[in-house]
């Protein structure tokens, strides 16, 4: 998985009445894999994406209100956004798509799947928000600056190869602004109750026929790993994998183990 010659294209596409910023890349004849970014937006091409691009056709949109995609003023909560995304997927022609969501994007993926399970082939949830952890509390990202929040998302940030890319010591003005934009939209989606929807565990029961893999870091300092148990119990037949010495970003902190899990799950 050395830095491949992977070519990413970035463009704006008209879907569901909005102009969606979309990064695409990967194997042309591979199955589609839709990746839903976390609460701070798309962090640029990362090693795990390069690796998955070898086998899959990747779609990495910036959600409305994040990155270059305009906010949808009528969207007042995560369920609104999930409903909008279903139409966006249809407009993109992505039927039976594999869906992978991270953190806030994991919550979004869970809501979308619960609304319309037959649109998806398989679901990967990476430390998803969306349900209230049985023990512990979700780290309040709005009472921290972006850098502190990002850093708290790693068990051992110094040994994360891509930490500097995601969270540079001196963020450029563009990156700092992108974080503020992302934080504002995340706030709109998740302020109260913070980062969860009380009805979601019950609604997730509908995923009984959608193969689902849950991945979580044992030392997640953002969303306590206790929530993995509730996710697992709420989705009949789901698989759950907890990674040791790993924080909120298994895709960055334990990239190889993460990739092995995702590949194994998607190809099985």
């Amino acid at each position: 998985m050395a830095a491949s010659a992977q070519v990413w294209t970035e463009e704006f596409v008209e879907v569901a009445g909005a102009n969606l910023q979309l990064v695409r890349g990967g194997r042309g004849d591979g199955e589609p894999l839709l990746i839903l970014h976390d609460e701070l937006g798309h962090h640029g091409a990362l090693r795990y994406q390069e690796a998955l691009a070898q086998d899959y056709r990747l779609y990495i949109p910036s959600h409305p209100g994040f990155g270059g995609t305009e906010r949808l003023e009528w969207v007042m909560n995560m369920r609104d956004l999930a409903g909008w995304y279903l139409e966006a997927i249809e407009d993109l022609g992505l039927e039976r798509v594999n869906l992978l969501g991270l953190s806030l994007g994991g919550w979004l993926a869970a809501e979308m799947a619960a609304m319309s399970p037959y649109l998806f082939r398989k679901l990967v949830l990476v430390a998803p928000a969306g349900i209230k952890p049985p023990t512990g509390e979700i780290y309040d990202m709005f009472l921290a600056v972006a850098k502190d929040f990002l850093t708290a998302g790693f068990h051992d940030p110094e040994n994360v190869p891509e930490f500097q890319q995601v969270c540079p010591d001196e963020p450029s003005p563009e990156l700092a602004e992108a974080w503020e934009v992302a934080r504002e939209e995340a706030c709109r989606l998740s302020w109260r109750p913070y980062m969860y929807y009380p009805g979601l565990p019950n609604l997730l029961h509908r995923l009984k026929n959608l193969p689902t893999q849950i991945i979580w870091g044992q030392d997640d300092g953002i969303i306590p790993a206790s929530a993995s148990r509730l996710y697992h119990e709420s989705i009949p037949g789901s698989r759950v994998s907890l990674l040791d010495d790993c924080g909120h970003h298994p895709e960055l902190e334990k990239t190889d183990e993460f990739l092995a899990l995702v590949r194994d799950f998607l190809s099985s």
Partner: protein
Amino acid sequence: MFIGYFTERPYQDPKSGYFGATGKPILDLDVSNDIYDAQLGADLYNRYLDEKIYAEEMGFDGLMLNEHHSTPFCMGGAMNVEASILARITQRAKIVLLGNIIPIWDDPLWLVEQLSMIDMISRGRLVSGWVRGTGRESVAHNVEPHYNWERFKEAHELIVKAWTTPGPFRWEGKHYQFRHVNPWVKPYQKPHPPIWLPGVVSRDSLMWAAEQRIPYIMLATEMEPTKQAFQLYHDTAAELGYESGSQNIGYLWKVHVDETEELAEQTGRKYVQGPSNPFLAGNEGTTNQALLRLPGLTSRRRVLPTQAVATQARGGSIGPGGVLSRPYEQQIQDYTIISGTPDSVIPKIRHVLETIRPGSIFFWDGDGAMTHDDAMRSLRLMGQEVLPAVREIAKELELPGPFEVDPATGKPYVADPPAPVPAGQAETAG
């Protein structure tokens, strides 16, 4: 000229560890209420009310209150409670609330009732200001910061309608829905108590005040950017086709008067020695940077010239040790603190009035580490010497207040002022 008196009502506890410019890292929201001393709290609440009574006796036109939450620098977490008491224990002065933080309440109709009752009990002495609140307030009452401005405008419309339109009616808004609006108590003043808007940062808010033709009060900002911001108000008014003037703008700043210059300096320095206060330049302590960046609370782009100053005052730029980013000496030099004997204070106040030309002013005093005695000495000298002189200066400079000239039309009130007031008002409301 309308002259008001203000104290932020700090919780002054020298034992607390955060008292004085200690350089301690005092992040907003991080000070636990575990240290709260009930005896001290009771003493201070009563002290601040006593000082308000004396301020009225000394001739102030307005007794100003404000509100903050979850913080020791302002004890007025339920300002309307203090205002209710003042409504009964004072006789003449306006009760100036700057203001209720309308976006943070899910039930603005409760405010409608509270404020109407204050107006009733005071027989029409309420000035009902609104504010948007800082990040601290949105967090303390857990209200969406990103809807702060939308909720502000909708709550304002709902409150004014509930005050002025016979009920019952329904309200189906974006942020508020009520199936039966028919508050029994209505305001004493008709059509409703004056609404003023204080602020420091948001261009949206200042423009809104100009559109609503209501007074805008700048809070403890430096003079030059304040002047620029007020020019924006006047320009907006001109575009909207009405003539604004001093009656539309107000200015609050720190003024302390004492018996000798030495005592004045000694006491003036206490402004920067109380519990850290993000608004009290020179003693900000360190503030929570995340609170300043609470997503969506105010526009990151549409800010006023006063923003740089305000950001600094709220902890945006912190000097060595985390305190004293604007030393006392500098504030004396730029007139944001005026402290002295009546003879030395009066010409300085004149300079501020000449520069900014406000129709309402508020002396911010008795704050920081100042004691009751400090506050009372100053109030006495203000009443005996400063206020009469300032009224003369205001006349000479032609700076009418919002109860002399209608801020909405620029025309003097000919018959009655907007609210019936008891005898005695005429002598002091100049």
